[in-house]
């Protein structure tokens, strides 16, 4: 199941400057493992020691924040787009 992942600028040095990568995974957790397999060291950036996504990082599946879904166990299907976005200020 191929998932399109949007990579934020600060992480593009891991992906050879690619802003978007395609990977196979059936859940967000699996996707994190797949990302780390393709781009070693990436998981350590995304997650804390317990494997939990860092608190200043937002992850969206098809534009929906995974905290409104099943968090890291959120299921993915072919064609889904996952976006990784560091928290930003606003107003």
């Amino acid at each position, binding site marked *: 199941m191929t998932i399109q992942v*949007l*990579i*934020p*600028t*600060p*992480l*593009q*040095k891991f992906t050879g400057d690619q*802003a978007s990568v395609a990977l196979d995974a059936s859940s967000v957790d699996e996707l994190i493992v797949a990302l780390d397999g393709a781009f070693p060291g990436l998981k350590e*950036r*995304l997650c*804390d020691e317990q494997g939990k996504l*860092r*608190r*200043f*990082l*937002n992850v*969206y599946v098809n*534009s929906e*924040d995974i*905290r*409104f879904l099943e968090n890291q166990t959120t299921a993915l299907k072919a064609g889904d787009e996952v*976006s990784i*976005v*560091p*928290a*930003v*200020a*606003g*107003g």
Partner: protein
Amino acid sequence: MTATLSSVTFKGLRCKECGHPYEATARHVCEDVCFGPLEVVYDYDAIRARTSRASIEAGPVSIWRYRDFLPIEGDPIDVGTGFTPLLRANRLARRLGLKHLYIKNDGVNMPTLSFKDRVVSVALTRARELGFSTVSCASTGNLANSTAAIAAHAGMECCVFIPSDLEAGKVLGTLIYNPTLMAVKGNYDQVNRLCCEVANTYGWGFVNINLRPYYSEGSKTLGFEVIEQLGWKLPDHIVAPLASGSLFTKIRKGFDEFIKVGLVDEKPVRFSGAQAEGCSPIAQAFAAGRDFITPVKPHTIAKSIAIGNPADGPYALDLAYKSGGTIAAVTDEEIVAGIQLLAETEGIFTETAGGTTIAVLKKLVEQGKIDPEETTVAYITGNGLKTTEAVTSVVGEALSIEPQLASFNAAWERAQSLQRATWESVGV
């Protein structure tokens, strides 16, 4: 021309979470370690050596009187931003049962009538120094107004993003400066996510994304000014609206920096925050005693503070807990009543965010969470003329009369009896 090197008082950026250092370029997250937000590092010894109460008082009547505390290298873009009135609010104080209440009125900030002019003045000055020719932002309205206006003044290209359901005044108040305006079919959090994706591929300066460490420093001036305007004293309690939570924490940082360099004596200040019930992720976390924020989907008339996923929420929460403050939420009806109350008692017409602040102020007094003896400052961050939709149904109508004295006399009598009825129901 840029100033000499010795006038630069900041040294670089640092992760607020893990302390990892970074150069002072356009970046906002700790990409090498933990993804925490970056903040500016200053040389406080240099600032202490350069500043005094007298040197600040002799400076420009704008945020740039605090230039040594702001992260720029050369000449600022000075459009008269800042040094807005701090009003002693005696009539509102009496109505609420307080003795020492002040309103910091950024609804008359320049050039676009909200506190955002502070952050944008700093962000665009820094953007120019970093070589950006196009600036952008994700906005709930006020930030778009300010970015478009100051970009126009500075001669920079501008493309800004807003949710498509904003108030007409906020949209017009951006379009008039002729930027490219993208109205995104979604809420602010979706706009923000889109902008992050745009920022990944376009080499623009996004004031609230890659310029965020510089941008957010502008809010400190709301702390500096209150200290100076209180006669170089700290207040006892502040009440401010919470959207991303950045303003709230930067007011504290402003207080801390003046203490650090010896411009004001230290004392405890309680920090209380205001949210609309329809978008209250920080207030909900506070009520539950949590130290983390669960995002929400906004649904409130207070669109300027409708951020469901507040980036600085954890820090705002921490500040309220540690300072002995409260974070509370009020309904849309209470927000409208708050707008009316401030207008009728103090002659200040604020937008929905200000109505939220006044409504929460009232609520906290009623709950005994503000001591009547405390010197309390309520921060009003935006102007009511931008969100007229919120109050059109409650302001009543003009009395239509003929150009004849008899017509006036009849209408005046009617108006007097209507007012008497209102007085009897409200009391003074």
